[in-house]
Structure formats: structure tokens, C-alpha cells
């Protein structure tokens, strides 16, 4: 199965979107004559693999290289750099060019910024005195479809930039990307935003609309009905919890990257020691589509059933001799799904071996206690956190629990806060001090100063749900975390159903302002008027069509939350399809890691 996801079932014509990105890239490659060496930054290379196969680029006469600190080895006289506009890459480019110069090599250099040029980057090139030798262009890749209902901006640093460094360029990026979507699919009439970055993005989007309006005349109805923007900051609780769905666990334990997961060959039942195998994961795999959003035990059951049913069929085929050709055909068809089944049997088995350990259950239980904020249980939580620090378990695990506790309790009591911080520094080294400081600055871990309003929020939005019968098919998104409905998705649920107004109260307790506005086709200029929010039925003129809601998460979203959204749209009586766009698909670990990395570099 290919890594590039099949988008035919997408609620929006994402194929066209991807096709455009592909064409843009090939145009760039094609515009430079002769053989050329295409140098791509490492992160971007992974992203591009979601758009086209590298062999296509070779057909266009391009040699591929990954940008690194080493001097460039190529026989081509033309070098095309394709890099995201990040300052550290500029330095690498300049170094490679200088190295060529020192060797007396004459080359033509082209530099394409992804998605657009920035002044900061060009300044660096000027300082390095290579600006003159470069032909500079842009490759406007803002959005990459990860799957038929998930888009990614691939901005992994966005959260940390907003919260710690005060850099909001990612917000601009998001707004620009949405604006570009509007060019293709029409102006989105309803916008609901919550959080500082989201309202800012809305504002930018409106400005862009004023400066460079989307021509509405030759377009029919807007294909996207509602846009919901949410800051990750609004709900930091959810990503800190361990995900329990099949896809979520795959991401937590093996880390899904660009729609694939890399595992040891031995896990996949191949006898090759030490080798890694890439397994693509997207909805083109029908079985995966079916089980990705289920909790692991349920997913395992489904896979098990499939396997046994094939076994039975096989036995039948063997025992009865009078088989019609069509029956045989059917059977062979079902056999086709066999590789999918074995693949997931292998993966699920691997996950189960970790997820049925006692330590895993203990952690999930502690998370649940922390979410429910039972005061008499607090000492137990501290003891657990203290334990795992002293055992020097991965620091991400410790921080996730610490952040979770701090969020639901509005901080930690000073004495315990200092004690645990000291234990962390002692166990993991003093070099983690800037990290602790940054987490404090981002408001993720702090000293207790006021009473927590988490209980109020969670009551008002019914986040904690008692699941009485776990065997029954779930009827609420709280199944995702076995009894906790992700706050972010609860907000989305309310937003599509009735707008922000009915949940004004709990909304005010969450960080950042909220905004509810309606943009008319006729009144684009006065589009900032705040709509009263009581949009009971939306677009009645659409008839039986389901309306499409684009949910944008600024700062990342977890697989579990995407699962919850898919569950909502599949539910009966929900006339909505969801399309998710995110700066990055994250887990608690991958959310914290950029913060950790930047704290180490000391680039604060």
C-alpha cells in the first residue's frame, strides 16, 4: 500500500489541493533546465513524501539530497535548495555554498522558501554574503493532506513559539492557509474561534479577505460551512492524557510520522534482525480505517474476528468440493485483505504487550484520578509522580503528569512544587532548569495561587462520564478516554450545535477570548460584526446535504481527538462532516519535546 493517502472519499476535494502542490513543485523543478541537484531540508523531505513519490522528481532530472552540515556532493552544476524558512537552515545553505567556492566550483544556486520568504532568513543570507548568488523563489506549500479528513500545516513548533517565545508567525501561516483554501472552496460563512491565537487568526483572515478578496461570483455555495478555530492552550489537559485508541497508542508508543510508522522487522513477523520496516497508516487501508479510532481491546477483537472468519471460509472451501466459480471468486477476494489483517495483528500484538503491563494501567489510573480531582487522593498522585521521578522513567512521562496535575488543580502547593522540581533536577540533571522555567512561563506547571476552576469546567461540560457498560457500543465521545470526554472536542460539539452562547460561562473560565462571527457574501466589509450565536439550523437551503465543518487546531491535535470527531460525525442525527486541520498531529510527548529541545539550546 502506498504511503500517499487515497483522498477519493474526502468530504472536500483534497485531491485537487494535493495535485496543485505537486504541480507547483514540478514546475519549479522543470523551470530550471538541465540536470540539477535538489537539496531538501530533512523535515520537509518527510512532508513531501505525502505529496509525491521521489521517483517522479528523478524523472524530471533532479538528484535528491537532504540538507545537512556536510559539504554538498554532486556532479550537477545547478543546485536547488528547497527549505522551510527557518534561520538555522540558511546557515547550512550558506556554508555549503562557501564550501563550493573554496573548492573553486562554479554553480548556479536557487533557493525556494517553503511556504514563503521571510525577512529574517534573507537577512541571514545577506550577512553571510551569499544573497547575491542566489535566485530566490517561493514554494507555497501551506497544507498537506495527511488523510481524507486530516490536513496538517506541519508546524511542529507553533505551540512553543506562541506560548514561550511570543512568536506568532505560525498564526499568520494558518490564516494564510485557510485563505488559500477559500480561494478553492469559497468563503467560509461561519467562524467560531476560541483562544488568543485563534481570534488573531480570524482577524488576519478577515484582513486578507479585504486585501485580496476571493471572487465569489463564479463560485457556487461555499463548500465549507463553518470554521472552528481552537488554540491548543485552551485544552492542554487532553494531550497530557495517555491515548487509548489504536491509532493513538500507535502514535504514543511508536510515533507516527508523515502517515507511517517505523517498527522493527521482528514485530512484523519478518525474520530480519535489526532492520526497520515502514508501515503506512491511512484510510486507504480499509481495516485500519475501521479500527483506528477504537479502543485497543475492541480493535483487537475486530481483527480477531476478521482472522477467524477467513479461517472458517478456508475450511469451508476445503471441505466442500462443489464450489461454483463465483463462490471461489468471492473467497479469493476476501483473501486479498489478508495482508492487511496480518499487518494489524502484528501491530496490535506489539501494542498489547506494552498496554497490558501493570505500569501502564497504574499510569492511566493516576491520570483518571487527577482529572477527577478528588482531593483526598492527591497525596497518592504526588507519591506516584515522586516514584517515577526517582526511578528515572522518561522525563516526558513525568512532565505530562506534572502538567496534568498542575492544570486541573491550578498549580501545585509550593512545598511540593519545589520538592518535585528538586527531585527532577537531581534525577535528570541540572541542565533541565531552563526547561522547568519555560514550562512555568507557558503556564503549564506552576505554584498554586488560586482555587482551581477545572471542576467547574468539567461539570458544566460533562467531561467526566461514568461508563456503566463498557461492552455496549459507545454513545458519547467519552469512550475515547474511558470516561473522559476531551475538552476540546466537547467545545467543538457545542460550537456546531448551538454556537458559543449557551456555554459562555465555562468558556470564560478557559484561557483566551472567544469569537463568533458570520461573514456574508454581500457584506464582506462589515464582516466583523459579532453574530449573536444562535444559529440553530445552518444552511437549510443545502437540502439533504451534510454540511462541512473545518476544525482547526492551532498548536496541534492528538489522534484521540480526531477519533472523537470522526465518532461525532458518524453519529446518527449529526448533519456534519468534520475536516480537521492542525499545525501538527501530536502526542503529549511530541508536544513537550520541542519545548525541551529549545530549552536545551538556550535560545530563549
Amino acid at each position, binding site marked *: 500500500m502506498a504511503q500517499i493517502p487515497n483522498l477519493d472519499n474526502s468530504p472536500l476535494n483534497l485531491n485537487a489541493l494535493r495535485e496543485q502542490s505537486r504541480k507547483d513543485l514540478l514546475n519549479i523543478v522543470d523551470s530550471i533546465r538541465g540536470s540539477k541537484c535538489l537539496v531538501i531540508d530533512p523535515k520537509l523531505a518527510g512532508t513531501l513524501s505525502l505529496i509525491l513519490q521521489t521517483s517522479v522528481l528523478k524523472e524530471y532530472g533532479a538528484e535528491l539530497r537532504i540538507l545537512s552540515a556536510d559539504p554538498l556532493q554532486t556532479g550537477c552544476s545547478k543546485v536547488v535548495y528547497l527549505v522551510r524558512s527557518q534561520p538555522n537552515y540558511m546557515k547550512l545553505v550558506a556554508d555549503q555554498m562557501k564550501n563550493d567556492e573554496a573548492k573553486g566550483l562554479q554553480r548556479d544556486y536557487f533557493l525556494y522558501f517553503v511556504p514563503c520568504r521571510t525577512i529574517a532568513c534573507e537577512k541571514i543570507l545577506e550577512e553571510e554574503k551569499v544573497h547575491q548568488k542566489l535566485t530566490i523563489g517561493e514554494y507555497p506549500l501551506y497544507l498537506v493532506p495527511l488523510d481524507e479528513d486530516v490536513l496538517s500545516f506541519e508546524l511542529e513548533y507553533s505551540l512553543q513559539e506562541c506560548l514561550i517565545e511570543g512568536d506568532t508567525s505560525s498564526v499568520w501561516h494558518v490564516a494564510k492557509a485557510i485563505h488559500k483554501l477559500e480561494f478553492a472552496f469559497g468563503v467560509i460563512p461561519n467562524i467560531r474561534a476560541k483562544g488568543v491565537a485563534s481570534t488573531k487568526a480570524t482577524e488576519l483572515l478577515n484582513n486578507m479577505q479585504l486585501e485580496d478578496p476571493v471572487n465569489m461570483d463564479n463560485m457556487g455555495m461555499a463548500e465549507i460551512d463553518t470554521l472552528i478555530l481552537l488554540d491548543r492552550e485552551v485544552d492542554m489537559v487532553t494531550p497530557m492524557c495517555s491515548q487509548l485508541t489504536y491509532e493513538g497508542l500507535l502514535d504514543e508508543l511508536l510515533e507516527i510520522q508523515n502517515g507511517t510508522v517505523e517498527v522493527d522487522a521482528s514485530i512484523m513477523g519478518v525474520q530480519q534482525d535489526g532492520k526497520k520496516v515502514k508501515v503506512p497508516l491511512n484510510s486507504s487501508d480499509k481495516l485500519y480505517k475501521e479500527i483506528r479510532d477504537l479502543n485497543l481491546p475492541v480493535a483487537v477483537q475486530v481483527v480477531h474476528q476478521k482472522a477467524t472468519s477467513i479461517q472458517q471460509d478456508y475450511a469451508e472451501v476445503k471441505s466442500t468440493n462443489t464450489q461454483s466459480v463465483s463462490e471461489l471468486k468471492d473467497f479469493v477476494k476476501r483473501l486479498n485483505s489478508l495482508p492487511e489483517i496480518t499487518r494489524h495483528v502484528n501491530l496490535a500484538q506489539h501494542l498489547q504487550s506494552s498496554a497490558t503491563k501493570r505500569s501502564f494501567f497504574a499510569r492511566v489510573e493516576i491520570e483518571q484520578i487527577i482529572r477527577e480531582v478528588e482531593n483526598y487522593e492527591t497525596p497518592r498522585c504526588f507519591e506516584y509522580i*515522586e516514584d517515577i521521578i*526517582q*526511578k*528515572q522513567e522518561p522525563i516526558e512521562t513525568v512532565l505530562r503528569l506534572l502538567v496534568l496535575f498542575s492544570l486541573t488543580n491550578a498549580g501545585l502547593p509550593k512545598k511540593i512544587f*519545589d520538592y518535585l*522540581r*528538586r*527531585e527532577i*533536577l*537531581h*534525577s*535528570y*540533571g*541540572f*541542565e533541565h*532548569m*531552563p526547561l522547568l*522555567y519555560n514550562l512555568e512561563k507557558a503556564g503549564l506547571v506552576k505554584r498554586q495561587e488560586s482555587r482551581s476552576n477545572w471542576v467547574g469546567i468539567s461539570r458544566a461540560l460533562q467531561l467526566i462520564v461514568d461508563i456503566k457498560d463498557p461492552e455496549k457500543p459507545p454513545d458519547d465521545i467519552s469512550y475515547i478516554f474511558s470516561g473522559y470526554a476531551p475538552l476540546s472536542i466537547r467545545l467543538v460539539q457545542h460550537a456546531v450545535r448551538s454556537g458559543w452562547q449557551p456555554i459562555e460561562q465555562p468558556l470564560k473560565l478557559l484561557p483566551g477570548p472567544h469569537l463568533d462571527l458570520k461573514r456574508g457574501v454581500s457584506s464582506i466589509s462589515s464582516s466583523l460584526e459579532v453574530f449573536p450565536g444562535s444559529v440553530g439550523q445552518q444552511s437549510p437551503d443545502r437540502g439533504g446535504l451534510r454540511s462541512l465543518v473545518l476544525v482547526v487546531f492551532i498548536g496541534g491535535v492528538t489522534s484521540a481527538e480526531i477519533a472523537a470527531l470522526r465518532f461525532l460525525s458518524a453519529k446518527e442525527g449529526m448533519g456534519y462532516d468534520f475536516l480537521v486541520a492542525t499545525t501538527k498531529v501530536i502526542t503529549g510527548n511530541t508536544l513537550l519535546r520541542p519545548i525541551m529541545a529549545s*530549552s*536545551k*539550546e*538556550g535560545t*530563549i
Partner: protein
Amino acid sequence: LLLKESRELERNPVASKGSIHVPQVRLIDQAYRLFAETKEHLFESKSAEEHAKLLRVQHNLEVSTKQAIFLGSSVSDTIKTCIAMGNERAAVKVKSEFKVPDKRWYWLKACALATVGNWDALEAF
């Protein structure tokens, strides 16, 4: 004050990256004094103080054991290494100097003894 704050913070990671021992300690000492000037950074200043102390202890350990394996590791790891090398006295010294709680101490000791396979000692303790 804000400016100072950021300067202090920058200093720390830079300091812990440097491989030369003496200037590193000096830098951290400096950071400690800067932190101590303000009231809000009590925790930071204490940590910086401890960090400098740890580096000195590690330096002494490296001199006495003639093995360059201590510098840059955490307090816990230092204790583990000491015990694994059979140098329990040094470990106890580190423990008392950094006021390591008993619970962590027992865990570290058991862990270290198990890694080197010193089962007799593990049983004895």
C-alpha cells in the same frame, strides 16, 4: 530585571554545555549570585548553587577514581555510578551532601547493585 532574567537563563544552558570544568563552575556561580539578587528566584538560585557543588564533587571524584565518567551526569546517576563501582563511601557522601531522601537512595542503590550483578551486596542490604 527582565533583561537580567533572560541573561541568567541563557547562562545556565550555555554553562552546562561547556566541557571545560573550571570556567563552567564559575559561570554557574555567577548565575547563582544573579538569581539570589531577586526574591522570586529563590528556587533557581538554590539549584544553581547545588549545580556548582555537584560539578565540584564530580571533579573530585574523577580525580580520585581517575575515570572521566562523572562530569555532566545528574545527582542520581552519580550515586549510581559510585555504588556500581563499589565505592559506597563516596555515594553516602554525595547522598548526605545533597540531602537525598531515603526513598530515592534505596531505589538507586538497589538499581545500581542489580546492574552490576552484585547480588550478595543486594541481599546484605
